[in-house]
C-alpha cells in the first residue's frame, strides 16, 4: 500500500495548476463574472492539454490515464473555479465527436438541472421544455428540466474532486487573510477564535481528501457516496468560514469568497442527493457481516 501521489501524479497536478493560473487566473475569473460566456479558446486549450481525454484509451486518441489522475485535474479546476460543463464534456470524451479535443462543448442533465445549456454544442439527456433560471452562481448559467437523469457515479466523484479543490482554496484564502489583516494591534490570525475556524477548515479538507482520493482508486460506489458527502461539507462550510474570516470584505461582490460558496452549493445539487448517499451508506452497515463485540 502506498496511498500517496506518485511523481507523475504530482507533475500532472502541477501542470494543470500552472495552465489554470496562466489561462484562468484572478483577472480572467473576474472578467468571466462580468461576462459569463464560455471561452472557446480556453476550452480547446484544455482539450489539447488532455483535460477531457484524460481517461480515454490512447488507442482512441486519449491520454490513457485513470480516475485518480482525473480527480487531481478536477481538484485543480475546483480550486481555480474554472467555468463550463467540465464534468459533462469529460464524460462525453470518446462518445461525442469533438468532446475529447475540446472542439465541442457538451452539457448534460444532472438531476433536474442543466448547466450551460445555451452554450452547448451537444446536450445529453432530455431537455424538452427546459426553463432558464437566474442562476445563483454568476459563473454557471442554469436551466431547470422536468425529466431528471439518473446520477452517474463518475460524475459524482469528479464533482467531489472539484469541491475538494474549492475547499482547499478557501482554507488558503482564509489563512492568507488572517495572517495579514490586523485588528487590535495584531494579525487576526493570532486570535484563537479565528485560528480555530481555520484549523477546522483544514481538518475538513484533509478528511475529504482521503475520502475523495480513495474513491478515485477504488471507484466503489459507496466510497464515492462517502466522498461526496465529505467533500460537499468541506466546500460549503469552508466557503462560509472563509467568508466569516474576511468580515465585511467577505460579504462583498469584489471578494471571491461568494463565488466559491455559490459554486459549492450548486455542485452539492449535482448527482446523488445527500439523503440518497446517506441511505446507501446506512444500508451498507446492515449488509456487512456481523462482528464480535469486545
Amino acid at each position, binding site marked *: 500500500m502506498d496511498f500517496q501521489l506518485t511523481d507523475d501524479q504530482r507533475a500532472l497536478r502541477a501542470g494543470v495548476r500552472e495552465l489554470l493560473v496562466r489561462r484562468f487566473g484572478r483577472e480572467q475569473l473576474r472578467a468571466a463574472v462580468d461576462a459569463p460566456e464560455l471561452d472557446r479558446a480556453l476550452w480547446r486549450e484544455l482539450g489539447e492539454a488532455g483535460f477531457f481525454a484524460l481517461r480515454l484509451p490512447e488507442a482512441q486518441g486519449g491520454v490513457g490515464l485513470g480516475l485518480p489522475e482525473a480527480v487531481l485535474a478536477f481538484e485543480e479546476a475546483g480550486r481555480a473555479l474554472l467555468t463550463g460543463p467540465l464534468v459533462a464534456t469529460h464524460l462525453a470524451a470518446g462518445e461525442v465527436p469533438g468532446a475529447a479535443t475540446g472542439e465541442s462543448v457538451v452539457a448534460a442533465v444532472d438531476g433536474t438541472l442543466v448547466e450551460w445549456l445555451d452554450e452547448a454544442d451537444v446536450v445529453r439527456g432530455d431537455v424538452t421544455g427546459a426553463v432558464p433560471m437566474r442562476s445563483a452562481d454568476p459563473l454557471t448559467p442554469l436551466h431547470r428540466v422536468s425529466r431528471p437523469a439518473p446520477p452517474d457515479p463518475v460524475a459524482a466523484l469528479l464533482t467531489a474532486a472539484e469541491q475538494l479543490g474549492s475547499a482547499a482554496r478557501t482554507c488558503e484564502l482564509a489563512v492568507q487573510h488572517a495572517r495579514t489583516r490586523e485588528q487590535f494591534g*495584531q494579525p487576526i490570525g*493570532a486570535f484563537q477564535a479565528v485560528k*480555530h475556524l481555520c*484549523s477546522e477548515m483544514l481538518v475538513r479538507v484533509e478528511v475529504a481528501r*482521503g475520502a475523495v482520493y480513495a474513491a478515485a482508486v477504488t471507484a466503489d460506489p459507496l466510497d464515492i457516496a*462517502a466522498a461526496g*458527502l465529505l467533500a460537499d461539507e468541506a466546500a460549503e462550510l469552508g466557503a462560509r468560514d472563509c467568508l466569516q474570516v474576511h468580515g465585511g470584505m467577505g460579504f462583498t461582490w469584489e471578494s471571491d469568497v461568494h463565488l466559491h460558496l455559490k459554486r459549492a452549493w450548486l455542485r452539492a445539487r449535482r448527482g446523488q442527493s445527500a439523503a440518497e448517499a446517506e441511505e446507501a451508506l446506512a*444500508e451498507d452497515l*446492515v449488509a*456487512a457481516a456481523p462482528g464480535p463485540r469486545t
Partner: protein
Amino acid sequence: MDLSYTPEEEEFRARLREWLAKVLPGLPPKPSPDDWPGRRAYDLGWQRMLYDAGYAGLHWPADAGGRGATPTQHLIFLEETEKAGAPYVGANFVGLLHAGPTIAAEGSAEQRARWLPPVLRGEEVWCQGFSEPDAGSDLAALRTRARRDGDDYVVSGSKIWTSHAEVADWCELLVRTDAKAPKHRGISWLAMPMDAPGITVRPLRTLAGSTEFAEVFLDEVRVPVANRVGEENDGWRVTMVTLSFERGTAFVGEVVACRRVLGELAREARKNGRWDDVPLRRRLGRLNAEFRALWRLTQWNVSESERSGGVPGVGGSVFKLRYSRARQDLYDAAADVLGPEALDLDSPWTLDRLSSLSYTIAAGTSQIQRNIVAERILGLPKGR
C-alpha cells in the same frame, strides 16, 4: 496512489489471521473493568502471547528489539487484531505506544537494553507522568522539581490524571531540573520506578465510575541520574517526540473498532425498530461516511510516514481532532438507537458513551490540537 497490498503484506495478513483464529478462542475471560490487578495480568498475558508469536513491537525498530515491520504491516496488524476482536493494548498502552518508541529513538544503548525488552515481553507496565494539577494544557508550566544529589535526582511534586498508575512499574516522568531557565528549557525526561520510596498513588474516580487514572504524589523520591533520557534540561524536545507518537499512531486501531461498533449499532437498530426512523438511519449512514474517511486518512498518514521514514508529524493532530469528535457522535447516535436502555449502566454502550467523553480531552484537548494545526501546519501567528 495505491491501496492494494503487496504479496508479502497479504502473506503477513494471512498468517496473522490464522494465528488469531487459533489463539483467540483459548483466551481467559476478560476481567471486570474495575479489577485492576486482573486487567494488568490479562493485558500482560496477551502481550506475552504476541511476543512468543513474533508480533511484539512490530512497529519498533529492529535494533530496539522490534520487528522493524513497515508502518503498513503495523496497520494490517491493528486492522486484523481489531477485526478479530483480540484484546486491546490496555495497560501496555504507554509502554508500547509512547514510552517505548521514545526510548528507542532517544535512549542510550544501556537504556534501550534495560527498558525495551520487558515492555515487549509483557513484563513491565509504564504510565505517563506529564500532567500536573497546575500544568495540563500548559504542560511546560510543570513544577515537579528534581534536585541533583550525587548520582540521583531527588524528586518532589505531584502528577495527576496518570492512567494505570496503580499497576505501573515505571513512569515516564517530566520534572523541572532548572527552575531559573525559561519554562521550556528547564525540563528533563526521567524513567521513574513506581516502587521507589516516597511515591503515593491515590486513585481518582472517573465520571464513568471507574478508577482508571490517579493522582501521584512524589516526596523526595530518588531517581538515578542514569534514568534520564536525553540531556538534562532538554526534556521538552524529548517530550515532543513522545507526544508525536501519542497523537500519531495511538488511535489507528480504534478507527477499525469504531467501524465495527457502528455496524453493530445498525443491526441493533434493525432489531429494535429504530431503523425505520429516517433521520436516525441517515445519521448512521453519515457516520459510515465519516469512519470510512477516517480510515482513509489513516492509510494516507501511514503511507506518508512510511515514505518519510521518520517520527509521525503534526498530521496526527488533524486526525485526532476529527476522530475524537466522531467517536462521541457515534455513541450519541447509539444512545438514540437504544432509547431508555442508554441510561442503564449495565449496558456496555453506556460505559463506552461515558468514556468517549475523554477523547476530546486526553492526549491534548481539541482546543490545543486546533492551536497546533493553526500554528504548526497553517503558519498562523502565535497567540499571546
